[in-house]
């Protein structure tokens, strides 16, 4: 065994870097497939009703059109997932739903033909407006939807300060730059290969196999490189099934790439929220009662219970009296999906804004207020934290940022034409792990092959898993050949919930251990359950500091400086970890100031459904971002001691920006995004 230098922790360059900077990495649409045809979908233009006629004659008459499918001639599917029952009935459940698909020899012809398909509807009244006053708000399915601990009313009765506020966050779209795309290739009627852009090939494989009545092994999903996802590529969406259906119908390989506009109705979005937070505190700012009630939306088609935005409120701060709840409105809108820190992103905006308001009411520095309310054990589960670095993050962050001296009073600092303010917020994100299986094979000469159906959506999994394997095997990273992104590899959970590296890395470490113990040339092992799950509460933490400059006349908001300090256990790759945290913080800035999917209630569609109108942060929106982390040793989360870093960066950031805007202007914006009109209207 060689004594290779350990590589975990080092700022190793991405092993897939050269492929990506030369354009050689192949994303889903780009795999060369002989004789491939092109599919383009036709989408509903009403939000609710029935299709009464589909005229495909003009489309079919075009040279090069190979087929047109709609609900009357589409093959029957077996799936129970209503979102995946594509072209299965005449019912329209939302605006922008597939109602037909055209397959043609070229993308130009397919696009032309799709525009010639005429669909007539009988429209029914639709219901698309989320409100906290609806009488039909329902308890979403699932566990832990509500919580009620201690005596909130008694806690409030003891309080000397109460902050009772409502915050809202808009719908937002994931918008990875690589559009969702699938290539489907059938061999006979019972073997299907998909090149697909997703966060977990096994997820897609299982759903597609189910839809076509196949065994999982009869479907192979290949996805080595994924051009961003952020949640929208975690679950199977209708276009994947539709592509396979189209390929079967025309008996040729078919590729389908959604247009950017189609991505606004077909691959999910972050649910808007309406959140009421009630914080009660004594003279010293110690919380005597905490309430957080959230209203979300789902589609009539199906439920989604990921965005439990008040869940983090159960563990952030100390206090014996606490109540949280979630209610959903079922609307005639596209199904939402998960989006980077689903729930935590929205919930932390409300809670951390309310903490800032409380700090001002109490006349206590907002960093100090958070430190005073630091819990000893997890208030939610009662368990000790496996590690909790929040206070250290706040202290180190304040130091790095130059938090003090700071006037508590807002609207105090004018530099030239800029009103200057600073804000802070705290972050937490669960450090979980899931199932994964890895196979390691000795290839001779001190070289090893590692196989696992992990997914690198830009997180750095190609690199970090190679590093973990190299250290576990005590070889150099060049001695490890990693294979990921293929459902033919050992099953592993998808990339999501900041659990990828924790799960996949654990499986690799376990497989290495087994290889050693059995002195074998090949070993397969599972990540297994975490034995400490019932003993410790496991979270990553962070503290976000932001400086904003607000134009005194136009109220344009600029963010010249952000500092984030995080407690994420052991950092496995200093380079890619920093990038993930930078990305998350930039998402928080973008969420605070720019992102909003605007609903037109008349039609039930999204008005700003492209990248010119749906604003994401661009290079000029981002200035200095300083990312750091504290030393944190956590032996309980996984054998690497690492917590996921994909989502913690966005948690709290939008609140830190909003708090800084308040500090600069004296205007508290409780409805994201913070646009000029909201700041001007308040004057």
């Amino acid at each position, binding site marked *: 065994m060689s004594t290779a230098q350990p590589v975990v922790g080092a700022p190793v360059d991405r092993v897939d870097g050269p492929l990506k900077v*030369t354009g050689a990495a192949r994303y889903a649409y780009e795999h060369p497939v002989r004789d491939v045809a092109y599919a383009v979908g036709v989408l509903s233009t009403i939000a609710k009703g029935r299709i009464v006629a589909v005229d495909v004659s003009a489309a079919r008459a075009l040279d090069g059109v190979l087929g047109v499918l709609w609900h009357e001639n589409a093959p029957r599917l077996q799936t129970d997932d209503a979102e995946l029952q594509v072209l299965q009935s005449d019912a329209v459940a939302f605006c922008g739903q597939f109602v037909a698909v055209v397959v043609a020899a070229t993308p*130009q012809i397919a696009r032309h033909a799709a525009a010639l398909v005429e669909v007539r509807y009988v429209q029914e009244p639709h219901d698309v407006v989320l409100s906290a006053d609806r009488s039909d708000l329902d308890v979403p399915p699932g566990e832990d939807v509500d919580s009620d601990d201690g005596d909130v009313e008694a806690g409030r009765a003891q309080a000397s300060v109460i902050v009772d506020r409502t915050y809202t966050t808009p719908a937002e779209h994931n918008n990875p730059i690589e559009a969702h795309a699938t290539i489907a290739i059938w061999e006979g009627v019972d073997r299907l290969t998909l090149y697909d852009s997703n966060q977990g090939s096994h997820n897609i494989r299982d759903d597609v196999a189910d839809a076509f009545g196949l065994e999982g092994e009869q479907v192979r999903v290949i996805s080595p490189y994924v051009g961003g996802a952020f949640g929208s590529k975690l679950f199977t969406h209708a276009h994947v099934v539709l592509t396979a259906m189209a390929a079967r119908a025309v008996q040729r390989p078919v590729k389908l790439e959604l247009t950017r506009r189609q991505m606004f109705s077909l691959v999910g979005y972050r649910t808007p929220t309406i959140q009421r937070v009630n914080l009660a505190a004594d003279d010293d700012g110690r919380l005597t009662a905490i309430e957080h009630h959230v209203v979300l939306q789902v589609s009539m088609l199906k439920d989604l219970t990921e965005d439990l935005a008040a869940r983090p409120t159960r563990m952030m701060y100390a206090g014996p009296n606490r109540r949280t709840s979630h209610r959903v409105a079922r609307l005639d809108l596209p199904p939402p999906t998960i989006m980077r820190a689903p729930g935590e992103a929205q919930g932390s905006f409300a809670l951390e804004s309310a903490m800032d308001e409380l700090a001002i009411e109490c006349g206590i520095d907002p960093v100090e207020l958070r430190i005073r309310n630091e819990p000893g054990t997890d208030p939610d589960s009662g368990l000790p934290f496996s590690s909790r670095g929040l206070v250290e993050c706040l202290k180190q962050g304040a130091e790095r940022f130059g938090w003090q001296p700071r006037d508590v009073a807002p609207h105090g600092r004018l530099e030239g034409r800029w009103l200057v303010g600073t804000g802070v917020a705290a972050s937490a994100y669960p450090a979980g792990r899931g199932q994964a299986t890895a196979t390691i094979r000795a290839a001779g000469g001190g070289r090893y092959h590692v196989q696992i159906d992990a997914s690198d959506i830009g997180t750095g999994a190609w690199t970090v898993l190679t590093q973990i394997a190299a250290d576990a095997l005590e070889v150099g990273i060049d001695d490890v050949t990693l294979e990921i992104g293929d459902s033919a590899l050992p099953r592993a959970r998808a990339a999501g919930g900041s659990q990828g590296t924790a799960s996949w890395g654990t499986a690799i470490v376990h497989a290495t251990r087994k290889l050693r113990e059995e002195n074998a040339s090949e070993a397969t092992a599972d990540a297994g359950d975490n034995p400490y799950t019932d003993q410790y509460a496991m979270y990553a933490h962070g503290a976000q500091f932001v400086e904003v400059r607000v134009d005194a006349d136009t109220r344009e908001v600029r963010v010249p400086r952000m500092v984030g300090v995080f407690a994420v256990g052991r950092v496995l790759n200093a380079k890619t970890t920093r990038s993930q945290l930078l990305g998350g913080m*930039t998402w928080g800035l973008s969420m605070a100031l720019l992102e909003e999917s605007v609903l037109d209630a008349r039609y039930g569609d999204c008005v700003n459904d492209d*990248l010119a109108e749906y604003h994401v942060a661009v290079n*000029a929106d*981002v200035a200095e971002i300083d990312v750091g982390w504290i030393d944190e040793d956590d032996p309980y989360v996984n054998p690497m001691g690492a917590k996921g870093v994909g989502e913690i960066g966005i948690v709290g950031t939008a609140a830190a920006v909003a708090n800084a805007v308040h500090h600069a202007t004296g205007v508290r914006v409780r409805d994201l995004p913070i646009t000029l009109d909201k700041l001007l209207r308040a004057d």
Partner: protein
Amino acid sequence: MSDVDVALRVNGTEHDLTVDARTTLLDALRDRLGLTGTKKGCDRGQCGACTILVEGRRINSCLALAVAHQGAEILTIEGLATGDDLHPLQRVFVKHDAFQCGYCTPGQICSALALLDEAERGWPSAVTEDLATTAITLDDEEIRERMSGNLCRCAAYVNIVAAIRELAGA
């Protein structure tokens, strides 16, 4: 629709194609020539993922028709490296981790290549204080402004600026 013959000169190699006249330069590169390094992100000139250089200038290839570029000198990401030898911009993008998923990266790099040339020629940007100057200093603000036509949803902007700055020598 009518088919049209067009000769495209890409990375120094001439390709004779018969294309549907509606074919964009982007689709000709990706679907017909197999040069999939140039990416499609929005197909309407809003994201910059399809940025390539035509006659040395950066353009969104999704907004260009293939037939309009007969004989033009086209440079795509595949034309930057020499064998395994990465172009200096490709090297600094890897070094500074100026990408995550990598999908916008070819467009970012092509854009950066043109940016360096534009600054060299003294072309001002919206943030250049002195519009009459011919000596552009590529500081962070100039780089950010000039790279804002290329969206990076992974948000590697801070690292993209650092990478370009290393070559800009500012």
